[in-house]
């Protein structure tokens, strides 16, 4: 008794069971998957009940099973509501809704078994035909309300769901709803109008294929339940086993029974041996067959397949070889684009204050904005899984489908922004995992490149700043030089202006004193002498000031010329003779036994030094109770000419000696003896001596006296002694 609808039943039952189990086993903890299993069990139950009713051959039993199919339909309706709700709410279903529809299911269940629902069945040659009663209309209402209610749940309720979830629901809903509509249409409209019931049943069974088909499509294309890989592998196995079975059957029966081997395999034993050999042979060929089908299914399911390891290592090579941000970014993106087949991709690098760099900044019209991007810095964002409409809108505006924040252990670096895959596929778990590995490495590389670039930029800024500062300094230098020139001119002019009247004062005073304008008394002469000395001193102060100012401005220069101290020193001593006389200081010049060599030194400045030291000696020994005594020595040995002034004055306290040659420094006892000293004299002596390559001679004991002086090298550095000797002759 061949029944054509068996062709529908068997594959439909198998597919339903396999699908339900795969979904459930793939993630048994997920509510949606569990409900899908319950739903599949419902479909399975209905099919089995219908199948059994058709083939059982007993009218009583057939009636009972037909009633079961009605009851199971109610159950299927309930699980359909639960499935759509769970999908729409992304695994967080509405419990109240379940409670109410569960109650409805319980209430309706007894109705299925009322005699007025399915009144009787009659055995036909294709199966059983049911006669429905009045209460069967309840199921029409039930079916319609389930259809409408799920429609509302899936699409009209306010659902926080991703576009991916919406697409998934759409397919699942369409599969089930079409099945439902086919059932409503067939059972309640066509049958009453005379469609043979056998077609109605066949339609109902076949309609289940819509559920399997649409759900399957959602699984494969839209990653419903995340079981694409499982489905692909299962299909590969199904095909492999199918092909294997076919091959085995062909060889075992076709060959064995066929003409070719019929005469050889005559005995039972030989047939056994043949089968064993065949089995071994096939056992070895199975992996090959499986691989063949895997390849084919892979090609069908994973057209955009790439090798993640290859991708990671390709990118690793770029990361290791590039240091410039622009090259690094564009090369990495080129590899990702090519291997993952992306429409667009970008890298945005953040700096301390906003976006530091973004790829294609010149090409993309919609540039990224730091505050917008900041919303995605927490973790990987896949647009299809995003429920936040605001965030989705931002990414869709930029055609971004996935955002990978780039961060190192220490800092946040930026974003890897990927566009749509050219295939339209969404990013798989494998994609995301691979890209996360890449992101981590990319973050470190970009961080380095950014630091490098920052250093480069910093260098540039620094160079620019240095350039500006140099220009400013140059300008300031010009101004300073002008000012300095003006100052020098002023000092030179001031000293000239001061010296001229002083020359006149000294000159006239000396003339009066010397009797050029009539006889002067001794008393008058002494007074005039004091006036003369004061003016002389003032001249020297002006010179000291002039020299100190020159030292300050770096204009102080030793102008070397031949100087014969044998001649110069007595002149200086004689100029001080009157001053010494008036202070009752006995000044004695101890001339050398033979004249000292002529030196290449600065005459004016050396004269000033001699004068300063002797003047000091006269001043500070004038208070000596036994009368001041100053001895001036000029001596020479092979290398040095030395000048010394020994006095019996106040001396310099030990503690003050170190500071004595400092500018403006004056020892306390000196200040007391001579309040009007400037503290410049010894400073100048020190400087002039040093600049002429000489050394200061100084020793002192407080209260007993001091010896001041200097020694100058006979041969000035780098100069020929004979030249100095010749010039001595020339002067004479």
């Amino acid at each position: 008794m061949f029944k054509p609808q068996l062709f529908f039943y068997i594959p439909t039952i198998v597919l339903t069971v396999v699908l339900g189990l795969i979904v459930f086993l793939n993630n048994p903890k997920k509510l949606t998957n569990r409900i899908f299993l319950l739903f599949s069990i419902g479909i399975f139950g209905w099919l089995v009940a219908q199948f059994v009713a058709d083939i059982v051959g007993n009218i009583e039993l057939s009636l009972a099973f037909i009633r079961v199919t009605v009851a199971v339909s109610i159950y299927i309706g309930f699980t359909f509501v639960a499935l759509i709700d769970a999908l729409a709410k992304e695994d967080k279903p509405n419990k109240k809704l379940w409670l109410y529809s569960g109650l409805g299911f319980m209430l309706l269940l007894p109705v299925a078994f009322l005699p007025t629902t399915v009144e009787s069945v009659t055995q036909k040659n294709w199966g059983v035909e049911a006669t429905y009663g009045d209460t069967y209309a309840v199921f029409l209402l039930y079916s319609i309300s389930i259809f409408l209610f799920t429609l509302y749940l899936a699409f009209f309720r306010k659902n926080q769901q991703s576009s991916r979830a919406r697409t998934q629901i759409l397919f699942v809903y369409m599969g089930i709803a079409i099945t439902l509509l086919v059932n409503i249409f067939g059972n309640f409209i066509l049958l009453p109008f005379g469609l043979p019931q056998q077609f109605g049943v066949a339609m109902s069974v076949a309609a289940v294929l819509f559920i399997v088909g649409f759900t399957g499509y959602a699984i494969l294309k839209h990653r419903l339940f995340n079981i694409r890989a499982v489905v692909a592998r299962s299909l590969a196995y199904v095909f492999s086993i199918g092909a294997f079975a076919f091959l085995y059957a062909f060889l075992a029966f076709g060959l064995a029974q066929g003409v070719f081997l019929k005469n050889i395999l005559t005995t039972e034993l030989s047939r056994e041996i043949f089968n064993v050999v065949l089995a071994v042979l096939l056992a070895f060929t199975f992996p090959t067959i499986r691989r063949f089908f895997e390849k084919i299914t892979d090609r069908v399911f994973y057209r955009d397949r790439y090798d993640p390891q290859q991708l990671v290592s390709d990118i690793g090579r770029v990361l290791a070889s590039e240091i410039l941000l622009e090259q690094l970014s564009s090369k990495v993106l080129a590899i990702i684009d090519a291997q993952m087949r992306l429409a667009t991709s970008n890298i945005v690098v953040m700096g301390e204050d906003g976006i530091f760099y973004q790829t294609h900044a010149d090409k993309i019209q919609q540039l990224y904005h730091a505050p917008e991007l900041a919303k995605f810095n927490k973790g990987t964002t896949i647009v299809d899984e995003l429920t936040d409409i605001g965030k989705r809108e931002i990414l869709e505006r930029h055609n971004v489908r996935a955002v990978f924040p780039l961060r190192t252990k220490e800092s946040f670096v930026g974003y890897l922004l990927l566009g749509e895959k050219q295939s339209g596929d969404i990013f798989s778990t494998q994609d995301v995992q691979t890209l996360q590995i890449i992101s981590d490495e990319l973050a470190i590389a970009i961080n380095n490149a950014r630091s490098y670039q920052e250093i480069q930029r910093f260098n540039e800024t620094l160079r620019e700043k240095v350039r500006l500062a140099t220009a400013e300094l140059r300008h300031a230098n010009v101004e300073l030089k002008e000012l300095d020139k003006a100052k020098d001119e002023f000092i030179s002019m001031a000293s000239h202006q001061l010296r001229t009247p002083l020359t006149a004062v000294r000159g006239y005073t000396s003339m009066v004193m010397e009797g050029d304008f009539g006889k002067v008394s001794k008393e008058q002469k002494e007074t005039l002498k004091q006036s003369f000395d004061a003016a002389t001193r003032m001249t020297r102060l002006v010179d000291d000031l002039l020299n100190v100012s020159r030292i300050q401005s770096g204009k102080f220069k030793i102008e070397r010329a031949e100087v014969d101290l044998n001649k110069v020193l007595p002149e200086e001593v004689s100029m001080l003779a009157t001053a010494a006389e008036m202070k009752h200081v006995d000044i004695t010049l101890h001339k050398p036994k033979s004249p000292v060599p002529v030196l290449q030194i600065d005459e004016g400045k050396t004269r000033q030094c001699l004068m300063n030291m002797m003047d000091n000696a006269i001043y500070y020994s004038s208070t000596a109770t036994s009368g001041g005594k100053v001895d001036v020595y000029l001596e020479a040995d092979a290398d040095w000419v030395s000048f010394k002034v020994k006095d019996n004055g106040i001396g310099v306290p030990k503690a003050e000696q170190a500071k004595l040659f400092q500018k403006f420094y004056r020892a306390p006892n000196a200040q007391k003896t001579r309040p009007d000293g400037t503290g410049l004299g010894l400073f100048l002596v020190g400087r002039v001596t040093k600049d002429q390559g000489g050394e200061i001679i100084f020793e002192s004991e407080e209260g007993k006296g001091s010896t001041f002086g200097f020694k100058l090298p006979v041969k000035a550095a780098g100069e020929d002694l004979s030249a100095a000797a010749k010039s001595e002759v020339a002067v004479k």
Partner: protein
Amino acid sequence: MEGDTQKAAVPAANEKADVVVVEDDPFISRMYQVKLAKAGYHIAMGVNGREAVALITQHQPRLALVDINMPEMTGIEAVNQLKNDGYDFSRTKIVFLTNSNNPNDIEKAKSMGADYLIKADQTPRGVLELIRQKLGEVSS
């Protein structure tokens, strides 16, 4: 007697002067004038380089005291002018006066074969002694 000498120091227009003093500062030029006149020299006075050229050319003195820093024409320029004019210096010794020991001036003075003295360091007596020495009237 000293008053008479002072008057006699200013030579008449046609009289030849022994010494020409060219100095822009009136106090100083007057001072040298008095001192030199008292010592018996005939003196002609000028206040700038141009007058120096004119006076030296006119009087051909035995000695000229010429200040370096003067308005209009400096002492050095004046002597250069005389050289260019072909003045015969064998008759006249030039002593430059300077108020600052500016090495440049000293160098220039020496290179022109002239002597120099720093006014601030010298009293009129010192100047007089230098002149006498230059004119060979006393041995150094």
